[in-house]
């Protein structure tokens, strides 16, 4: 790829819109809606055209039938763009009781609760964000919301945007491409190590929790960055569809770790396309946790493009009553001497359903490839369900491929042991579940790990009570 001048760009397209303009597109999706979205965001014309062609692809593509049940999504009953301020609940009392209750039980501070519930933007994090911005700016690191990224660095965005996950990749990537709003834009220059994890949480811009987030991360040669998004507390939203696209470019010798914990409320379809392109000697890691939603379909992918590239996917999913977590990972070996590891841990309780769906693909020209897939499922009770759909497409003999899969149930003897130490049944179950997912949880930033463990505890109390 060519060198790009990283200079903030003055606004030069379209009209200037008045401050505080409130805009809400009509329900449903057509050319006019998409044009309006682009107009209101004051985007360059190429982005508007990109959106329009993506819309065409979205309309042409059929719903995927191989995964979870998507037939109940009514695409005409969705607001595709609302200025973020409009989305917030007007007061704390408007939030559903179970959401408020969970916040109380997790023990989240009041200000944070309101932020998570969409009642207000968090004041303190704005201060934090500004100071982080200053430190990052000195190193030449760009950390913005995607809308601002496009406005300030249109050339850089144009070079990468939609090249790793083109709109034609799948119906929901097309939908996102047509309607995207918010998400993060990160650029880390050559050789720069960002020591602290970058958290989307700090990026106060209300576009944070959009329905159709779009994230683009470019880690230039030899750089390092850890990006963390989401939170363990349930995110309440009236939107029933969340469809994000995340594209990450890991250049030669660079390393990127992307950590997500998502806990959407149980009415949400969470359909996400995530992909990393990893060059020679680069390292790309996905750490992905899915707790909430009605249906999640998400398979973070690593495209290993250069010799010695390594990719890892760690995924943990929890499906409670009425939930289906269809998650996993993909590793595509486009080059020799590349290695990948996919570790998936899923927990199903109270009739919930988890599926592991994964792909390991090795091309004929990719010799000396190593890949390991481990998927473990834990069932809490008889009514819960877990399935495994692993696909291996190996077209080279000079490879080392491993696949392990286990399904276990919480054993009566394990429960008896822990209860004999004074733990209530629900606490004993939570301890076993937390132990089961521990290999992945220990990879999370501490505060996320602690919250996730507490959340599992709450879920178990609920399922037993």
């Amino acid at each position, binding site marked *: 790829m060519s060198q790009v001048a990283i200079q903030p760009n003055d606004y030069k397209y379209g009209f200037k819109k008045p401050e505080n303009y409130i805009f809400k597109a009509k329900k449903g999706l057509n050319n006019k809606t998409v044009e309006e979205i682009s107009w209101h965001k004051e985007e360059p014309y190429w982005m508007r055209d990109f959106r329009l062609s993506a819309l065409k692809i979205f309309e042409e593509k059929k719903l995927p039938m191989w995964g979870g049940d998507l037939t109940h999504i009514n695409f005409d009953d969705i607001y595709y763009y609302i200025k973020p301020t409009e989305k917030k609940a007007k007061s704390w009392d408007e939030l559903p009781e179970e959401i408020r209750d969970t916040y109380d039980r997790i023990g989240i501070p009041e200000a944070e609760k309101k932020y998570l519930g969409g009642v207000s933007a968090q004041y303190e994090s704005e201060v934090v964000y500004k100071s982080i911005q200053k430190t990052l700016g000195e190193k030449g690191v760009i950390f913005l919301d995607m809308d601002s990224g496009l406005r300030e660095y249109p050339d850089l965005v144009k070079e990468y945007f939609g090249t790793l996950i083109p709109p034609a990749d799948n119906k929901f990537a097309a939908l996102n491409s047509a309607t995207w709003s918010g998400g993060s834009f990160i650029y880390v220059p050559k050789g720069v190590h960002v020591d602290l994890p970058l958290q989307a949480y700090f990026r106060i811009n209300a576009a944070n929790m959009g329905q159709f987030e779009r994230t683009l991360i470019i880690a230039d040669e030899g750089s390092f960055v850890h990006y963390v998004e989401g939170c363990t507390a349930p995110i309440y939203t009236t939107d029933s569809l969340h469809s994000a696209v995340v594209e990450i470019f890991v250049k030669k010798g660079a390393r990127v770790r992307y950590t997500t914990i998502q806990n959407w409320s149980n009415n949400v379809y969470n359909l996400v396309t995530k992909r990393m392109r990893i060059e020679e000697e680069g390292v790309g890691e996905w750490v992905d946790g899915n707790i909430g939603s009605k249906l999640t379909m998400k398979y973070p992918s690593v495209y290993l493009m250069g010799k010695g590239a390594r990719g890892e996917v760690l995924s943990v999913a929890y499906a409670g009553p009425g939930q289906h977590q269809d998650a996993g990972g993909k590793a595509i070996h486009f080059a020799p001497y590349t290695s990948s590891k996919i570790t998936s841990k899923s927990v199903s309780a109270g009739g919930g359903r988890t599926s592991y769906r994964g792909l390991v693909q090795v091309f004929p020209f990719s010799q000396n490839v190593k890949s390991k897939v481990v998927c473990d499922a834990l069932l809490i009770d008889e009514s819960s369900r877990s399935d495994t759909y692993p696909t291996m497409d190996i077209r080279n003999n000079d490879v080392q491929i491993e696949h392990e899969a286990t399904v276990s149930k919480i*054993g*009566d*003897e*394990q429960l*008896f*042991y*822990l*209860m*004999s*130490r*004074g*733990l*209530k*049944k629900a*606490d*004993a179950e939570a*301890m*076993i579940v*937390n*132990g*089961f*997912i*521990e*290999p992945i949880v220990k990879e999370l930033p501490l505060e996320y790990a602690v919250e996730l463990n507490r959340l599992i505890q709450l879920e178990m109390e609920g399922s037993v009570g």
Partner: protein
Amino acid sequence: MSLIIKNLSVNLRERQILKEISLEVAPGTLHAIMGPNGGGKSTLSAALLGNSAYTVTDRVRGKNKPQILVDNKDITGLPTDMRAKLGLFLAFQSPISIPGVNVANLLKTAYQLSKEQRTKNHSSRHKEGLRARKDQKKLHNPALSVWEFNEMLVKEAKKLSIPQDFLRRSLNEAFSGGEKKKLEMLQAVILSPKYAVFDEIDTGLDVDALKIVATGIEQLKKKKTGVIVITHYQRILKYARPDFVHILVGGRIVASGNRNLAKEVEENGYRKWADNN
């Protein structure tokens, strides 16, 4: 104030295993229960802690009602965790492994739970007069801070020659038989229960480990824990000396006596009682 077992009959999948067992264990005493394989020893320990796979049966309704009392509190129908909170402890014969649950965390949780409950018990007994209050003061050990707890844990682990890094490993995962038994002992010492049952704690231990474990049992006795040691062999009883020995054959206690009884078993085996049964 004792652990009292009265007329305890227990079924496992419709089959009667224990037949009207009665036993009284006073604080600070050591009872050894010896017997051949299949005599019902492990059933007794499971039934005491309320393992739901076992059912306490009441053949002669009303008359010889089966009962388990911990310091006068009837625990017969209580769930396992309540029994533990009231001060019962079981060291398992084959401790199960639980991936990802580390020993230190489990012990900290269990320790906090045991302190919570006992503090509650003591405050409810507030009005029992001066003497009770004095006891209460002695027993009432408010839960230690996390820091103090870790210190105690490390100290006690050292006494049992358990390497410190074991405490951070997954419970019983990739532990040898002897290491598992020592971890059970460590838990007993840390939780300092009112009554502790050791189910074949001596199996799979070499002489050094056996001595260490026996020291743990003696330590508990000194702290007034009433102890039941379930075993095949007299071996451990040389180091942890029992006050009473009971022979459990065919689901019944067929003989009780002092430690000479253990010697007799060592010399002649259980045949004598097996024939009578």
